[in-house]
């Protein structure tokens, strides 16, 4: 391992290509830091016109944002929607992922394509007809409509994320359990569920992050009482002029810190690069 580190560092110094690549990365991050930093500074600033930094610093914008936007109910709605979506999509998705990963049957490829489509289509393309249908049956405008709409990409996402985790489990374990007389339900609860816990946690957290950040579907189906944080933020920003820029910035900072916490938690459970292909890092 020490030799690998050494050789990497030597390459780091020698090749001009490496310098170019890292230079581009640094340039991207400097600008990204500027983008994030300017929002952060502005959310703490008092008046900021034609200078490098605001005239003074204050924390009042956070209090203002919290009160003006009624953030507490919005956060409660966001939490309700995302927990419901996570729960339902895991309950529906995991058994389906299990069958798709283990079994072959006529129509399997077609079904797989059907589950792939909601991920391959932009949310607006199916969101608008879906919202029309949900309005027709009286779901849209309420929490239930928002949850139903958000399930459309989440269930396929759970299925796709869980498939590699299921493939990693040796089918011999299940066969052994069946030989000892366990029924499918028992196999699921006693054998698969404990072995799949890391996978289910990973999928849940990724769905949670996606749902909290999902703008289009919530935007198309939410009523005034069922807005999640992203949608409330969008409305507050597109209605610019009514609200102070700084309090919108403060709200955006609150949102991003929430997402950041979620993502850091997610990264503790799942190595993001292993979602697509199983990687043997101990190879060299």
């Amino acid at each position, binding site marked *: 391992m020490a030799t*690998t*580190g050494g050789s*990497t560092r030597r390459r780091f110094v020698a090749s001009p290509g490496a310098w170019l*690549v890292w230079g581009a*990365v640094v340039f*991207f991050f400097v600008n*990204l830091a*500027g*983008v*994030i*930093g300017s*929002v952060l500074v*502005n959310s703490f600033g008092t008046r900021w*016109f*034609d200078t*490098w930094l605001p005239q003074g610093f204050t924390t009042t914008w956070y209090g203002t944002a919290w009160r003006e936007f009624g953030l507490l109910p919005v956060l409660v709605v966001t939490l309700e929607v995302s927990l419901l979506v996570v729960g339902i999509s895991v*309950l*529906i998705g995991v*058994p*389906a992922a299990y*069958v*798709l990963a283990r079994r072959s049957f*006529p129509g399997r490829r077609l079904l797989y394509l*059907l589950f792939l489509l*909601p*991920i*391959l*289509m*932009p949310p*607006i393309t199916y*969101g*608008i*007809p*879906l919202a*029309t*249908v949900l309005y027709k049956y009286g779901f849209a405008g309420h929490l239930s409509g928002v949850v139903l709409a958000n399930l459309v990409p989440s*269930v396929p996402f759970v299925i796709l994320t869980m498939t590699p985790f299921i493939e990693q489990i040796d089918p011999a374990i299940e066969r052994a359990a069946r030989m000892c007389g366990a029924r499918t339900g028992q196999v699921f609860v006693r054998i698969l569920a404990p072995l799949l816990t890391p996978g289910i946690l990973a999928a849940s957290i990724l769905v949670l*992050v996606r749902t909290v*950040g999902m*703008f*289009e579907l919530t935007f198309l189906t939410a009523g005034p009482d069922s807005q999640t944080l992203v949608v409330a*933020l*969008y409305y507050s*920003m*597109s209605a610019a002029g009514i609200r102070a820029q700084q309090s*919108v910035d403060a709200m*955006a900072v609150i949102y*991003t810190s929430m*997402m*950041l916490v979620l*993502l850091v938690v997610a*990264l503790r459970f799942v190595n*993001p*690069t*292993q979602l*697509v292909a199983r*990687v043997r*890092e101990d*190879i*060299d």
Partner: protein
Amino acid sequence: MTPKDQNPTVRVALRHRLAERGVDRQLLLLAPAALFVLVLFVYPFLYGVGLSFQPARGGVFGAYREFFADPYQRDTIWITLRLSLPAALLNVAASVPIAYRMRGRFRGKRLLTTVLVVPITLGTVLTAQGLLNFLGPTGWFNRLLLATGLTDDPVRLTYNYWGVFFSIVITGFPFAFLLVLSYLSGIDPALERAAATLGAGWVQRFRRITLPLLAPGLATTFCLTFVLAFSVFPSAVLVGDPAGETRVISIAAYEAAYLRYDYPMAATIAVLMGVVELLVIAAVLGWRSLLYTGSTAGGKG
């Protein structure tokens, strides 16, 4: 055999024959998911397609004719493609060399991956606000350009094409990078080392070994990044010029549905959006099917 058992035997035989083809009770586990996709995805989608053929006037294809007759609507397709194709290409192309450098182990790899993933958490509004603050006429970026004397007037980068382009790059790049990195890590480094012992140089190794093995993964990454970029809606409104230069197709669909309450038209635009997007994806995946799609693990794979 008693007559009583006759019927069950027939049923058992059918069950056996089905089981031989892989159909048995366990498939019922699929039922909730299949039902769910049918009710919440296929049905609404077909309903939308049906709705698009029932406009208030102009007969069956009235809404489609109306869309293509009006340049203000028709051009949204072109505007969307002009934004999303270059942005998706840039994201994928930039990911390859960076991911190439990040293979294997080195100190701080996990930290670097985490930092690269952070933009996923930003959300459209913070990205939009940040771009407006940072790239705006009095923002830090223009301030720096003016201070170093690179320009005399502030560069205009917000409320136009570039603002939206940057916002797509910021949100799409981490995603593309993660995918490319995982595809690239799946390629066995022993293959390249074998080529190196045969005397292949850096360029040859990349062109003859890594790139062909990586290409299918790149196609997938491009598709997923393109979907993200193609559906750009909030940032086209917030940092773009939603009435002109960045009037993307999702804005047209939204306006038809929620401002003019013209649901057949909205459904038509949604269908067209899906068709254009699937055409691009089909082209990319069709090209991909011409490429090698076997194991990238080398050895016995």
